[in-house]
């Protein structure tokens, strides 16, 4: 582990959702996050990547104080979010903003862009007298939304524009940490490039700490300093971006890398994708199993019994949870 001097520090965080337990449904529980420890430096940009259901959103919500973990602790600038009083938590949360995946539904359909931003500023008492309009103008400028569009409603905007407004709303509170939860998964490739480069620019300009979540490694490749790969509620590999892409160590990371479509002419052979087994794999038997074991070409019975620790591999910053590394 890195030193815990980070701006956001998660220590042994776990989250179990309990459901059912009604007369009609037997109680059931889902371990959305098994055990995540993570220290994010000030002004760092971290990519959090994994398939759907791997626990990314749950980690994101815990990280910004929206969801209390079942186990472990979360600190922002050294203060424990969940042992803080309700008032203090509210204060701390202002510095930790999150942008969600579905840009349109994250906005109130009855509010124009201007109204949405005005409300956020007002609720937090951030309007400087007589300056509201100016503040909104500069927020919109920051995310490249034209002033003419300020009086539009979400359904009159494109997906990319909605996402920009979502980012502007998060920035209105002048956070120090911005968590973007799959901000580009629903956008087309050209808009993805726009939004990702906007986030990278904002981080530079505002000195933000950014957590960028994606299911596609190629989305984070050019804009983050470090990548954590999640699977089944665990971080299975974490490394500085260049190390991860040049020497992916966990077989799941390699699967993710291979899955990215490359701009290369059709060969008709599909050697790349056809070699992978199709879909269907059952959940690992033991709750402590490596979540990749059922799909892993190198899996052993030891892997199905217990996932190894997240340990340094070729260098101290390159961590991996695989017994072959």
């Amino acid at each position, binding site marked *: 582990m890195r030193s815990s001097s980070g701006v956001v520090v998660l220590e042994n965080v776990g989250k179990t959702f309990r459901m059912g337990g009604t007369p009609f449904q037997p109680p059931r529980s889902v371990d959305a996050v098994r055990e995540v420890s993570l220290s994010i430096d000030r002004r760092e940009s971290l990519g959090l990547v994994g*398939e759907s259901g791997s626990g990314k959103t749950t980690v994101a919500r815990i990280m910004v104080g929206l969801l209390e973990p079942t186990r472990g602790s979360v600190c922002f600038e050294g203060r424990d979010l969940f042992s803080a009083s309700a008032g203090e938590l509210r204060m701390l949360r202002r510095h930790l903003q999150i942008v969600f995946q579905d840009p349109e539904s994250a906005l109130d359909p009855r509010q124009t862009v201007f109204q949405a931003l005005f409300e956020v500023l007002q609720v937090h008492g951030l309007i400087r007298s007589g300056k509201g309009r100016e503040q909104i103008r500069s927020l919109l400028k920051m995310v490249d939304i034209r002033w003419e569009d300020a009086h539009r409603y979400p359904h009159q905007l494109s997906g990319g524009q909605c996402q920009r407004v979502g980012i502007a709303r998060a920035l209105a509170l002048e956070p120090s940490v911005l968590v973007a939860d799959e901000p580009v998964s629903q956008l087309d490739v050209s808009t993805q490039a726009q939004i990702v480069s906007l986030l990278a620019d904002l981080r530079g300009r505002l000195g933000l700490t950014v957590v960028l979540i994606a299911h596609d490694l190629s989305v984070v490749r050019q804009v983050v300093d470090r990548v954590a790969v999640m699977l089944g509620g665990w971080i299975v590999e974490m490394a500085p971006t260049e190390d991860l892409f040049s020497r992916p160590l966990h077989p799941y990371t390699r699967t993710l890398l291979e899955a990215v479509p490359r701009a290369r002419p*059709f060969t008709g052979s599909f050697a790349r994708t056809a070699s992978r087994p199709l879909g269907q794999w059952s959940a690992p038997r033991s709750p402590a199993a490596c979540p990749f074991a059922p799909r892993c070409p190198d899996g052993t019975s030891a892997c199905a019994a217990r996932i190894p620790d997240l340990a340094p591999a070729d260098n101290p910053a390159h961590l991996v949870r695989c017994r072959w590394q």
Partner: protein
Amino acid sequence: MGFGRPELKSTHLLEIKALTVEFPMDQGVLRAVDEVSLSLARGESLGLVGESGCGKSVMAQSILGLLPPPGRVRAGEILFDGMDLVKLSPPELRKVRGRRIGIVFQEPMRSLNPVLRCGEQVAEVLRAHRGVRGGEARAQVCAIFEQMGFHDGGDLYDAYPHQLSGGMRQRVMIAVALACDPCVLLADEPTTALDVTIQAQIISLLARLKRARNLSVLFISHNLALVSEACERVAVMYAGRIVEVAPVAGLFDKPWHPYTRALIACLPGVDDATRPTPIPGEVPHPLALPGGCRFRDRCPEARAACGKEPPLVEGEAGHWVRCWVAQEAVGRNHDAE
């Protein structure tokens, strides 16, 4: 599979000629597809790419007679096996749809019936188009599932859509689309809502099925990289118009249209650290097209001549482009040869 397919008459299975599709709206007539011509040969896979709002889905919907009101085909023909689909009555079209042309959309949850077991949904198609019933239908459905790489067709038969992951549901949709052994498959962003790993599996499944059944596939996507892996030929669409058509290799070798080059440049490269270059601005709304070349406002090459709309011309055999500057450059190269 063992079903005989009715013999088809022309070499091009599907031929779209000067298709124009409009939506009459309060603010004016919205022309979403403007004189588009495309053809699909037997056993060929053709990709249709462009940013969202370019008219790709409207194209697919008009082929199938599924245009939402008030959309209508204003002009043009859609020839399929000697018939003009535009002229068919709704019941005649229903016979073609599903039976001869299969469809897969982006969101399987919207196309699948939530209260019907997955197997039943496939069996339903067999019943409607082939009159296969009862135990025979179940056996055939399980065979289809197994052909698609499911180990236990029976389990899947009895599952409800909500019990499945997005990728599994999309496979069920593909089974529904292919149940009657159609000769054409229209896939409109079939993997856009899925994780990259699942996407890779679905693409390879489609490729395998295409080869095994000599299917013709029209594959629609906003992602040129994905299309390049899945298709032999690509048509690039911009603001309702086709702006470039070429075999995939030719397109990457010589992307003539500035829009095609922009689509390539904005792809996130996973193998190197070069930042993708976003395309500035957005696709113009069909009710607010710039005069002349529709890409003019965003085009780094634009010049005075671009105030007039360029025609689609064939620069090399099978490689078409709609751009004044490209046209001139290709012409110069020809002269030099």
